[in-house]
């Protein structure tokens, strides 16, 4: 027996490509632009969002029948904010080093529109298990794009990956730099993230038949 039914598996796989939150729904762009200058930060942000969106979706789903519809948005906000603050406090107490690396992202997670989007569109109408899968799936789809963008920006902008030089030393002119190659400082600026995301969307739309629109 498969671990997940076909329908459940689709909840995870769909957001990875065909219904990716960044490239198709164009949500969560703000954080995708801000923190992808290096791969490490992209990875940390991806993991944080997987956690918050997975757990948050379950909490909202469990509360879905008792949340008054008039104030549901504010309830969702409180849930995600409370969750994020608790995670932050626990990290500060038990994993201080990690919490220092994460501190920038903690605030950004609350404002990530993917989280509110999934609460509103999915968790409010589905059971906890399916909501969990949907949360993890969407966060993975978000994370993949973050890591792709981070990979190109760090490689072309700083010549490193995860902070490790891969193209040689730009100052001592070794490796690729010996042939006159230069880092493109422009890549580490936020606007270039937008262009990289645009290129990903372009490639995806031209390759994926499900997404090709007829005119």
């Amino acid at each position: 027996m498969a671990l997940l039914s076909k329908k459940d598996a689709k909840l995870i796989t769909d957001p990875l490509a065909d219904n990716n939150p960044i490239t198709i729904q164009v949500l969560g762009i703000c954080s995708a632009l801000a923190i992808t200058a290096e791969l490490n930060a992209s990875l940390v942000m991806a993991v944080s969002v997987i956690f918050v969106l997975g757990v948050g979706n379950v909490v909202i789903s469990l509360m879905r029948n008792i949340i008054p519809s008039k104030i549901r948005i504010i309830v969702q906000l409180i849930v995600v904010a409370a969750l994020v603050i608790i995670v932050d406090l626990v990290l500060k107490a038990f994993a201080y080093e990690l919490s220092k690396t994460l501190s920038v992202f903690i605030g950004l997670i609350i404002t990530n529109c993917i989280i509110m989007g999934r609460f509103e569109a999915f968790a409010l109408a589905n059971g906890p298990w399916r909501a969990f899968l949907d949360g993890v799936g969407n966060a993975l789809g978000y994370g993949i794009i973050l890591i792709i963008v981070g990979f190109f920006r760090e490689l072309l902008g700083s010549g490193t990956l995860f902070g490790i030089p891969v193209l040689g030393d730009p100052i001592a002119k070794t490796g690729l730099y010996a042939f006159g190659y230069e880092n493109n400082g422009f890549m580490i600026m936020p606007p270039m993230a937008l262009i990289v995301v645009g290129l990903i969307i372009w490639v995806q739309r031209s390759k994926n038949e499900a997404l090709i629109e007829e005119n």
Partner: protein
Amino acid sequence: MEKRTDKNSYTILFAIGMVLVVGSLLAFAASSLRGKIDENKRLEKQQNILYAMGVNENDESSATFVSTDKAPEAFSKYISKQLVIQDGKALEDENAYLIDVKKEQTLAKEGSYVRRLPLFVGVKDDKTFYIVPIRGKGLWDAIWAYVALDKDMIVQGVFFDHKGETAGLGANINKRFFMDDFIGEHLMAAGTFKGINVIKGNADPLNKDKTDNEVDAIAGATITGNGVSAMLKSELKLYVPYFKTLKTN
């Protein structure tokens, strides 16, 4: 038919209940973890101070502190004296490192208050370091540093940190490639205090000239870099009189 959850009375009760539950949950979490968090912050200060004077576990490229369990021991071993300078007088205070620089800065702004300036004297391999904690503003939030100086105000080591600078850009001020550039830089120029400027388009990117009062900036982090320059200038200036007394004695 109207659903039960659509009623105004239900909505209000739900909101009150939610506030109570979430509020007490957060209050409980915050107060039960406070002790541990404060302890972590205290150890971090010790690690930062030690890092600046060269007591650390750095390998070739990364910046690594002495581990938290060894920090208190190393701190009492290497830091020989802690001073508080107020109104030109330097008094010993074994808890000077716990002085909140931010609080002192705010109090000093309000007029008559004379700032207490903490200074730590460390000795390692027969060399004396004067370590100074400073604090300033980056692009998004606070930045701070521990600067280890010798008696001529030449930088011997520095540790920068920040609260929320942009990852990959301003946040890199706590990376070795930036911090190590400060080592050996002079704060004085021809007998007067000049500070160290973090400068773009520096003619000396390899940082061989240590007396130019300049280090190379991080691309894409102009405002954070300016914040670092401003912090070094305004804060370290306050210590100049103390260093003058060191020379005359």
